[in-house]
C-alpha cells in the first residue's frame, strides 16, 4: 500500500496554485497535527497495521513541519503501520524552508530518503511573477543542503510554459537544472486553474503566454535534452535517472491501493474511494467523530476500466492490453483497429508486444488519445 500524508499549509499562496492549501496559522496547525496523529492511529488499527511500501508527505509545504513534529509523525506512523524495508520516504520541500544543512540533516535523521524540491524556476523574474516565496539562489542553497545531509534521491520540480517564456528560455532552465545532477526532474506545464491570480491576469490579457506551437517545441525539445543528459522519460511530466523513478507516484499510475491522510487527501483501497474534508476544522471534526471514510464509494467496473486506461497511458510503459481486456475492456487492437491505425500514422502511439504506449508527441495529447480509446457509450 502507498501512504500519503497531506500537509495543507504554506508560507504564502503562489499565483498559480489551485490546490487546497492555507497560509499558516498556529491554532489551525495544532488542530491539524493532533487530528493527523489520530488519523494515523485510526487507520493503523482499522486496517490492522498494513504494509506500506512508500510514504509520501506532500502539500502544501510539508518542509514547514518542525523537525520535532516530523519525528512525532514518523514515530506514529511506524507504530501503527508496517513499514517495509527499503521504504521510499519522500518529503515535498520548498527552497525557502529547506535552506540550511541542519534542517536537511534533521529530515535524513527521521528517515526521509527522497526530497522533492519545488524549484519551479531558476529565473528570479519568473519566480516573482509566480509569487514563489524564494529566489533562485535559495533554490541552489536547498539543493546543496539536501546533498550535504546525504540524501541521495533528489527530485526537482520545474514549471514550463510560463509567461513570455520561449523554447530557448525553457531549454536553458532544463539544462541548468540537469547540471545540478538531481536523480529526478518533474516538468509541469503551467495550468491556469480557476480562481487563481494568474488565471485572472491571463483573462485580462496581461500575460504573454506561449502559443501552442511554442509549447509543443518546449515539451519536445525539453524531453530530448533530458534524454541526452541521461534522464528517462517515464511519465508525461517525469524524468529520472535509471533506478530513481518515484515508486510512490508509479504506484498511482499502476493502480495500487493508496491511503491518504490529512485534509483533502484521497484514498483508494480495494475499489473503494473516499476523500477527507478539505477544510482543516471539518477534517479534525471528522477524525474526532471517527467518521473517516464514511462517504467511501465503490468504483464501478467501468470507472476502474477508464482509470486503468487513463493512468497507464500516462506512463512510458503504457497500457497492458491483456490486463485491459481481462478487466473487461475491449481487445483494442481489433476493436479499435481504425483509430489505432490513424494514431500510429500520426506517430502518437506505438504498439510493441502486448503494450500500447504514447510517443513523446502522443504524451502531449494524452487526454485526447485517452478519449479516443475510451469505451464508447451506448
Amino acid at each position, binding site marked *: 500500500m502507498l501512504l*500519503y500524508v497531506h500537509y495543507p499549509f504554506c508560507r504564502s499562496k503562489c499565483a498559480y496554485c489551485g490546490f487546497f492549501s492555507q497560509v499558516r496559522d498556529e491554532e489551525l496547525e495544532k488542530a491539524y497535527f493532533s487530528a493527523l496523529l489520530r488519523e494515523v492511529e485510526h487507520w493503523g488499527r482499522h486496517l490492522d497495521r498494513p504494509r506500506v511500501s512508500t510514504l509520501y508527505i506532500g502539500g502544501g509545504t510539508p518542509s514547514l513541519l518542525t523537525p520535532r513534529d516530523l519525528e512525532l509523525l514518523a514515530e506514529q506512523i511506524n507504530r501503527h503501520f508496517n513499514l517495509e524495508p527499503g521504504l521510499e520516504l519522500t518529503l515535498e520541500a520548498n527552497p525557502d524552508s529547506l535552506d540550511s544543512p541542519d534542517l536537511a540533516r534533521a529530515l535524513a535523521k527521521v528517515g526521509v530518503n527522497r526530497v522533492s524540491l519545488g524549484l519551479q524556476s531558476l529565473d528570479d523574474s519568473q519566480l516573482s511573477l509566480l509569487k514563489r516565496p524564494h529566489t533562485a539562489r535559495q533554490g541552489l542553497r536547498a539543493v546543496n543542503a539536501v546533498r550535504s545531509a546525504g540524501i541521495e534521491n533528489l527530485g526537482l520540480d520545474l514549471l514550463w510554459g510560463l509567461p513570455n517564456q520561449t523554447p530557448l528560455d525553457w531549454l536553458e532552465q532544463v539544462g541548468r537544472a540537469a547540471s545540478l545532477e538531481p536523480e529526478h526532474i518533474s516538468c509541469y506545464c503551467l495550468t491556469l486553474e480557476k480562481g487563481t491570480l494568474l488565471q485572472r491576469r491571463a483573462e485580462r490579457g496581461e500575460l504573454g503566454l506561449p502559443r*501552442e506551437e511554442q509549447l509543443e517545441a518546449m515539451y519536445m525539445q525539453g524531453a530530448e535534452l533530458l534524454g541526452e543528459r541521461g534522464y528517462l522519460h517515464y511519465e508525461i511530466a517525469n524524468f529520472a535517472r535509471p533506478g530513481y523513478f518515484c515508486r510512490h507516484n508509479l504506484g498511482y499510475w499502476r493502480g495500487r491501493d493508496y491511503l491518504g491522510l490529512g485534509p483533502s487527501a484521497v484514498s*483508494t483501497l480495494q475499489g473503494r474511494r473516499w476523500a477527507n474534508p478539505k477544510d482543516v476544522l471539518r477534517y479534525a471534526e471528522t477524525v474526532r467523530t471517527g467518521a473517516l471514510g464514511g462517504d467511501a464509494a465503490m468504483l464501478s467496473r467501468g470507472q476502474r476500466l477508464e482509470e486503468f486506461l487513463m493512468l497507464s497511458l500516462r506512463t512510458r510503459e503504457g497500457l497492458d492490453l491483456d490486463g485491459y481486456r481481462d478487466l473487461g475492456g475491449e481487445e483494442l487492437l481489433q476493436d479499435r483497429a481504425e483509430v489505432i491505425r490513424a494514431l500510429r500514422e500520426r506517430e502518437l502511439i506505438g504498439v510493441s508486444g502486448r503494450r500500447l504506449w504514447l510517443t513523446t508527441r502522443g504524451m502531449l495529447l494524452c487526454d485526447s488519445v485517452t478519449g479516443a480509446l*475510451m469505451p464508447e457509450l451506448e
Partner: protein
Amino acid sequence: MRPEQERIRNFSIIAHIDHGKSTLADRVMELTGIIQDRDKKEQFLDRMELERERGITIKSQTVRIPYTWQGTDYILNLIDTPGHVDFNYEVSRSLAACEGAILLVDATQGIEAQTLANVYLALDHDLEIIPVLNKVDLPSAEPERISREIEEAIGLDCSRVLQVSAKTGENVEFLLPRIVEDVPPPSGDSEGPLKSLIFDSWYDPYQGVVVLFRVFDGSIRVNQTIQIVSNRKRFEVNKLGVFAPNPEHCERLGPGEVGFLFANIKDLRNARVGDTITSADNPTPEPCPGFKKVRPMVFCGLYPTEPAKFDPLKKALERLQLNDTAFTFEPEASQALGFGFRCGFLGLLHMEIIQERLEREFQAELIATAPSVIYEVYKQDGEVLRMENPSELPDPAQIAEIREPFARMEIHVPSEYVGNVLKLCEEKRGVHKDMRYLSSARVIITYDLPFAEIVYDFFDQLKSVTRGYASLDYDILGFFTSDVVKLDMLINHEQVDALSSMVHRDKAYHHGRSIAQRMRKLIPRQLFEVVLQACIGNKVIARERIPPLRKNVTAKCYGGDITRKRKLLEKQKEGKKRMKKMGNIDIPQEAFLAAMKKDEED
C-alpha cells in the same frame, strides 16, 4: 324556415394581417345579437389558438348572421377568408362563394400588397366591393390619403367610403345596411340539379370530414346521396347545418345558402376545396370551374432532436395532414441528422405554421433545415423529373437542362426605401418588371425573382432593408431554364448528402465558402485534421481546414487528481455522444445545422 333567395347576402372581408378583420367580425356579431359580449371568446372567428396568437386566420369559417333592415329579415353569411398568399387558392374559392366583399384597410397604414392581390381576386369573381377604413379613432389615421390611395391602386370609387373603428364600435352600425344594399342577392335556380361549391373542409376527429359549401343551384337535404364531381365518389348526407355562430342543424339548404355537412367522409382528399358537390341522381351539367390540386412549392427537412422521437413525430405529421392536404411529407434519412421527414408546403408561411403546430402538438423540439424549392430536370431522353431533393439529381451527363420556379413579386414600400429594395432584388437575380407610384409616398415595385431566392432569406432581408415597412405578394409564374448546379459538401473527402444544395452557378462559390466557414467555426479542433470542401461535381470551389490539436494533456495526475480527471474524460465522452462520428473525427450537430440553415451573417 328558409329565407327567400333575395334576402341572402354572402360576403367576405378582405384585410391585411392586423388591420382588424376579426375585431370587425366580432363587432358585427355583437350588433346583431348573435354573440352576447366578448366574454365568451375573444375574436370568435379565429378558431384555433394558434391563429389567435399569430393574429391570422388560416382556415375559413362562415357565420350566418340574421339581420333586420327596414322591416325585412335578411341573412348575412360572412365567409372568412385566409389572408395570406400561400393560401391563395383557398382565398379564391372563398371569394367564389360570395357576391360581395368588404375591403378593410387600416387608416393608419394603407393598403398592403397581399390585400391588393386579394382585391384583384375578388374583382375577377365580379364581387361588389365595399371599401371600409378601420382604426379611424387613432390619431395617426389618415382616412383621406388612404382613400385616395385605394382609388388610385384599384380604381375603386371611395366617395362613400365608411370610416369605422372596430375597436370602439364607432360607425360599425352603418356597415350592415351597406351590405344589404350594395351586395347583390345570389342568383341560382332552386329547381335545377344540385350544384354547390366546397370552399373549406377540415378533419374533425369525432365527426370525420366537415365540409363547408355554398349552394348555387338546386338544394341539398339530409339523407340525400351526394356525389363529389372530381372523383364521382358518393356519400350520404347525415347532418346539415349552419354556423350561427354555433352549429345549428337543419333539413335543407337552397340556392345562395351557406352551410356545413357531414357525410361520413373519412379522407379529406374526398372533399377538397374547389370541388363541386352535386346530386348523385341528378348531377349538374355545369360544375364549378373545377378544383386545382395544390402542390407544395417549398420543402424542408424536419427532424426530431432525439432519434427516439421519430415515431411520435410521424404520428403528429399524420394528424396534421388529415387537416391539410396541401402539406406533404415522406421519410428521409440524413447522415447528419438521422431519421426524419422531407416536408412540402405551399409557401413559407404555410411552412412556419405547420412547424409551430407540430412543436405544439408534438411538444418537442424540431430541427428544420433551410427551405428549398422544387426543380424541373429535363433529361436528354426527354424525361422530366420534379426534383424535391438535391440527392435525386441525375448524372450531369443525362441532364439536358434544369428549370427553376420563378415568382412575380409585388412589393409595396415607402418611397424612401425604393433604392434598397431595387438593390436587394437585383442581388437576388431578379428581373425588373414595373414600378409605379401609388401616391407620392408609396411605390409598388414588380420583379420576377427565382423562387429559391425568395424562400431562402428574401423576406428577412426585405424586412431589414425597409425597416419592416414593405409588404409583398407573389405569384408563381412557372419554371424557367436556369444555370443551377448542385453544391456538395465534403468532410474529409466524404460527401455528406444532407448538406448538398441546389444553387445558381454565379452564387455557388460564395455560398460554398460561406457554408465551409460557418462549419469551420463550429467544429472543434481534435486529434485529426478536418478538411471541409465545397464542390461542384469534382471541382473544389472552397476549402477550409481545421488543424489537429498539438497539445491536450493534464499536467499532473496523482492520487488526489484521479477522480477529477476521470470525470473530465467522461464529460468529454458525453459531449462526443452528441456528435456525429465520421471516421476518426466527431462533428457536432450544430455544425451540420449551420450548413443546413440560413446564412445569418451575410
